[in-house]
Structure formats: structure tokens, C-alpha cells
């Protein structure tokens, strides 16, 4: 009888292993199963915090589950044990109330430090105003007279229609590409002023280490210093209606001189439509009015 149950158990384990095998291709790449380290000091601090807390919980988990499984294997009726009678122990209970408390204080200290750091938006060298719309983003370089809208790239937009018949894998950067990128300089303390025009959105760039809600009528501030040039991809992270899944963000971080050049080009009229020429705003207005 026990034997049969044991055999059945192994059967189940086999099934579990089989299912896990299904997943092996993804296991190879850690970026697919863990938080990104990102490219700013804060994002790395947050990553470290994340790993620390994760490790602590794993250790506690090993202890708790270890004791539990030990008990499950050793203290079973089928092994002929007689149950003990004890039902409390004040000393033990005090220990396991105080110990977690101490651990928590240990976690709270670094968390507080990072939080205070992130909150301080002073001393920024430039500011970008970000406005969420249903369903695209608007960017305004404060004091530079450059502003534009940024939408899902057309190839993704075509492919994402219901039954489009296009294989998403064939579209480069499916759902994470835009028509106009937010170009930012590296090694610069940038302040973001985030708001929305219709409903709440949330501007999330994992590589910068935070997301911040865009709330109509209010402005939220946060900051970043990007350390490495590159193209970083993020997305709207607050349900904002039908096309919430389709308003990505792309940041292109470039060296300062490149950025200056880009900005000057924009101010001079740049590529058609990329400047604050009003056409986009009008377009957006029409689109909003149509709803």
C-alpha cells in the first residue's frame, strides 16, 4: 500500500520534471528571469536591494521549509511514531517574534537609504516633461523649445491587430519600438516631470530603476543619471484603457556632444515633424476630440 503511494509520488515528480524541461530554453538567459541591473546608480542600488531581500527570504524559507519537510518525513504515523503532547513554549515564541523583527530592521535600513536618495530631485541639470496620452507619450525638453509625441512603431502596430496574420517574432522589437525616441545625454542629472492628459499612465523604464505614475492634473517629479550610452526600452505600466499594452517608451542615451547636436538639429527644424511644430499637437488634439 505505502509502496504504491510512493510509486505514484515518483510518477508525479516525473511529470513535474517534464514540465520544467519545457522551460529550459528560457533558463539560460538571466535577463528573462530576473530584474535588470539597469544603467543608473539608483537602478543598481535597487537591484542590489532586490537581491539582498530575495536572498534573505530564501534563507528563511530554507529554514522553515526544511523543518517542515523534516517533520513530514520523520513524524508520520506510518513510521509508528506516537504524537508528542506539547502545545506551547513562551521562550520559543518570543524568539521567533523578535528574530524576524530584527531581520526586518536590517532590511529597512538600506531600503530607507535608497528611498531618500531617489526622492531628492534637486540640482538637476536639465528637465524633461513627460505627458501620457491615450495611447502615446509626449515629451517636452523644458526651456529648449523642443517637444514631440512618441507612438508605437507602425510595423508593430500593423502586426498587433487581431488576426493580423503577421508573426510577431518577425517584427523587429515587436511592441517595444516607437516612431520617435526620447534622446537623452549620459552622465547628466536629468529631472523628469511626469503628468497625463486624460487618464492615469505610468512611465516605466526598467533600466533607469523606477516607474512613476502620470496623473492628470498633477505633476510627479523624479530624476536619473544614465551612465552608459545605449537604447533602452520600457512601457506604460498603469492600465490606461484599450491600448495600454501598446504605448512603449524608448530612450536613446548618447554622449553629451551628440545630444547637443541632436538638440540643435531639432531646434532648427530637424527632420520634418520631429520638432514642436504644432502638427503633432493638433493631430493629438483631433484624436482626443474624436473620442
Amino acid at each position, binding site marked *: 500500500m505505502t509502496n504504491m503511494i510512493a510509486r505514484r509520488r515518483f510518477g508525479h515528480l516525473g511529470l513535474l520534471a517534464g514540465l520544467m524541461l519545457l522551460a529550459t530554453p*528560457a533558463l539560460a538567459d538571466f535577463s528573462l528571469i530576473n530584474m535588470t541591473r539597469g544603467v543608473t546608480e539608483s537602478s543598481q542600488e535597487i537591484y542590489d536591494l532586490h537581491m539582498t531581500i530575495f536572498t534573505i527570504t530564501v534563507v528563511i524559507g530554507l529554514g522553515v521549509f526544511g523543518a517542515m519537510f523534516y517533520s513530514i518525513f520523520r513524524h508520520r504515523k506510518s513510521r509508528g*511514531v506516537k504524537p508528542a503532547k506539547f502545545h506551547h513554549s513562551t521562550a520559543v*515564541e518570543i524568539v521567533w517574534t523578535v528574530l524576524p523583527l530584527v531581520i526586518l530592521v536590517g532590511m529597512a535600513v538600506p531600503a530607507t537609504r535608497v528611498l531618500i536618495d531617489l526622492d531628492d530631485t534637486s540640482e538637476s541639470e536639465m528637465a524633461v516633461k513627460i505627458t501620457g496620452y491615450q495611447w502615446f507619450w509626449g515629451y517636452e525638453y523644458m526651456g529648449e523649445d523642443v517637444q514631440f509625441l512618441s507612438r508605437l512603431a507602425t510595423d508593430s502596430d500593423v502586426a498587433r491587430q*487581431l488576426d493580423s496574420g503577421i508573426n510577431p517574432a518577425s517584427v523587429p522589437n515587436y511592441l517595444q519600438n516607437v516612431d520617435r525616441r526620447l534622446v537623452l545625454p549620459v552622465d547628466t542629472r536629468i529631472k523628469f516631470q511626469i503628468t497625463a492628459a486624460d487618464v492615469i499612465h505610468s512611465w516605466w523604464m526598467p533600466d533607469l530603476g523606477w516607474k512613476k505614475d502620470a496623473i*492628470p492634473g498633477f505633476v510627479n517629479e523624479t530624476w536619473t543619471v544614465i551612465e552608459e550610452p545605449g537604447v533602452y526600452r520600457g512601457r506604460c505600466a498603469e492600465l490606461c484603457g484599450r491600448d495600454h*499594452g501598446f504605448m512603449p517608451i524608448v530612450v536613446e542615451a548618447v554622449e553629451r556632444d551628440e545630444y547637443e547636436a541632436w538638440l540643435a538639429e531639432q531646434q532648427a527644424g530637424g527632420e520634418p515633424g520631429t520638432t514642436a511644430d504644432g502638427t503633432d499637437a493638433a493631430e493629438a488634439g483631433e484624436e482626443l476630440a474624436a473620442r
Partner: protein
Amino acid sequence: MTATTQDHAHHAEEPTGFKRWLVTTNHKDIGSMYLLFSLAMFLVGGAMALVIRAELFQPGLQVVDPYFFNQMTTMHALVMIFGAVMPAFTGLANWMIPLMVGAPDMALPRMNNWSFWLLPFGFAILLSTLFMPGGGPAGGWTMYPPLMLQTGTAFPFVIFAIHVLGISSIMGSINVIATILNMRAPGMTLMKMPLFVWTWLITAYLMIAVMPVLAGAITMLLTDQYFGTSFFSAAGGGDPVLYQHIFWFFGHPEVYILILPAFGIISTIIPAFARKPLFGYSSMVYATASIAFLSFIVWAHHMFTVGMPLAGQLFFMYATMLIAVPTGVKVFNWVATMWRGAMTFETPMLFALAFVFLFTIGGFSGLMLAIAPADFQYHDTYFVVAHFHYVLVTGAVFAILAAAYYWMPKWTGHMYNERLGQWHFWLSTIFVNVLFFPQHFLGLAGMPRRIPDYSVQFADWNMVSSIGGFGFGFAQLIFVWLLYKCIRGGQKAEARAWEGAEGLEWEVPSPAPHHTFDTPPVIR
């Protein structure tokens, strides 16, 4: 259930057939109705989850339109929370609390019937909104304005449906409190009550405290929409975030409403199958009370990204982290109860053990979410989805299943089929992890929640998760079949169906007669 309970009922004066269920004031009848209703809603909510999982099986849109997807997400959550889990707990309370405290019935039997019957009506309204012009609600179960105000014709129906469900919960809770405080058999002092009764007392208190707050929040949504008020509009001096504060003042205690009775169930089942008294009874009671107290001062951990002042973020982070302490006490007590017991592993015990294991994992991810700066990355991703399904599905739902197996002999008078039960357990436990564990990865890797389509790097884990979802869903059909068989017949159950079971409910015959404890038992 009809067949078996009626045999033992004093059916002389009672209406039979369908009418009996409409007008009954009997706590066992009403408990059964709650439980069956809850099962039906679980299947409906689960079917919606399967629509979600089917769409997310691959990148690209294959099954539904994005707007309909959002309706499914919203409805899935509302149906599961208000239709499946809360009524299941209320059903268990109805069936078991009078038996456990030695009362002839619930304190306010007529109101008990009303609490139940409002539910099907409320859900009829809620589910009908899916067929209205403009579709059902699609703003998430949290119903944040201004998005929620874009709902079509369905808008006022959703609001009022939730009002009706709220009234039902409040009346149900009032009944539970009155029963516990006033109907205990002589000699059953508060500190002698079974823990399930204790946890329900505190849950009922939480519900009465926060359901009206939800009602207030959605009433303000209604007036903002139709009467020109500006609670949630900056133009008029209000704030969309105000809604979030009020909602989460309800919403956080709500999640403990969904878990405290589960704690009570686990604290009942583990001692029974470890054949050893519960470790630390009184610390269990104090821990439950502390969790309930703390639950009122942590709400804004759902809102770390809205741009709260620093002091607020710090306060809510610290308060949230504190909840790990009393919850830890509970987990440790359960493990200590198993320690040096003499355990057997019937289905209720298996679900209870899986609960301890998997709920704790959900608790750990909760603790990670509580760390505000890290939550800036986790928030609104599948990491959160993974967290709350671990505490809700392998937490609340597993506890409900454990309770169903544990008390089914008492309800039906028959033992369920243990073999099917074991199959149900193992398939559920394996698939539920295949379903939700990879969602941690997805969230960390950057997949937001509430999206119908995603970029291709998320494809593998989503596929795994969807396979788990269908597997888990179909495993639940085993339970439906098992329940049906158990109601229809099976091995006769003893009064004390389990060797180690303690409590007054095991002193009465199985199935419990229609009326029990007409004269209260005396507890030494």
C-alpha cells in the same frame, strides 16, 4: 445535497423543492447554498482566467480584442474575490460556526437568508454588464478614475452591483459577529473557541469596517460621473489619487479578509492530522488580531509610485514590513504543530501542507513588494500578479479546498473518494506552480500586468504559464466530479470522520442533522 439533508430534516412543515431554498432560515441550507454558489462563480471566474491565459499563450492577438481582454481581467478578479472566495468563507462560517460553538443556528436567521440571496442578484447585474453597449467594466478590479469613468452604459450597473454585494457581506458579517458573541454554548469562553471561529470574528469585524468605505469610494465615482462633483478631478480641486487612497483603505484589509479565515482552517486541519494540539493557541489569536490591526495602516503600499511624499512612503513601507512578524508567528506555529506529531496525509492535510508552503512563498514576495524602492520596479508587473495568486489561489483557494475535504463527510454523510482527492491535489499543486511561478520571472524581466499582448522575449514563460493555467483549471473539474459523487453516495462517514479531529462539530452525527444543538451542549 438536497437528497441527504432532507432525509434527516423534520420535513413535516417545511416547503420542499426549490421554494425551500428561497425561504429557508436554516444555517446549514444557507451554508450549502453559499458553497455551491461559490463553486459556480469559481468556474465562471476561472473560465475568464482561461480567456486571459489563452490570449497570452503566444505574442500577437489571436483570441480577443484588447478591450474585451481588459473586461475579462476586471471581471475575473471581481468574480473570484466577491463571488468565489468571500462567499465560500461565508458558507463555511454558516455551516460550521453554529456547530463549533454549539448554537442552534445563526443569531439572525432571516437576515442570513437575505445576505445569501442578494449575491445571485448582485452577480446577475454585474455579469449582465458584459452584454451592454460599450461592454462591461474594463478598468481593472481597482476601478481607478478617470479610466473607470470611460465605461459605457455598464457604469452605474457595476457600481450598484458592488453596492449590493457589499450590503450582502456586511449583513453576513453582522450575523457572524452576533452569533459568535452571543450564541456560544455555556462554558465556551472566548479563549476556548476553535481558531476558525476566532479568525472569522476578526474577519467579520474587518469586513464591517471596510466594505462601507468601498461603498463610499464608488458612490463618489458615481456622483463624479453623473452629478458634476469633482472628488477625483484635479480641475475641481480633487485628486484621482484620492480614490486610490480610499479604495486601498478598503482593499488592503480586504486581502486579509480573504486570508484570515484560511488561517483558521489551516489551524484546524493541521492539528487534526498531526494528532497533536495546535502549538501556541493564544499567540495565534494575538497574531490574527495584530494582522487585522496592521491591515488598516498599510494601504498605500499599493501606491508607492503615485508620488507620495517621502514620509508617507517610509511610513507605509515600515508598517507593511511589520505584518511579516505576526504572519511569521503563524507559520512557525503550524510547523511546530507538525513537529513530533504523528502525521497522516489525507487530502485535507495535503492541501493544508501545500498552503503552508505556497502561501509562505506568496508572503515572501509580498515582503519584497513592501520594500518601496524595489516596488518601483515590481509595481504593476507580473511579479505582483504572481505574488497575489500565490496568496489567493494557493492560499485562500487551497484552504477552502482543504476545508471542503475536511468537512465534506460532515455535510454529506459520506466519505469522498480519497483516490480522486489525491489526484486532484497533486495535479492542482503541480499545475498551479507551473501557472504562477514563471510569472515571477515575467514580472522581473519587465512584463507589465493587464496587457493582452507582449513583446517576444516574454513568449516562453507565458506559454508555460498558460499550460499550467489550463492544467490547473481542468484539475478542478476532478473536484466537481468528486463532490457530486460524494453527495450522491459513498462510504458512510462516522460522526468523527477523522481520527484526530477535535471540536463540537464531530460530536453530532454525519451528516449533521437539519437541526443541531437545540439544547446547548455544556463545555467543561
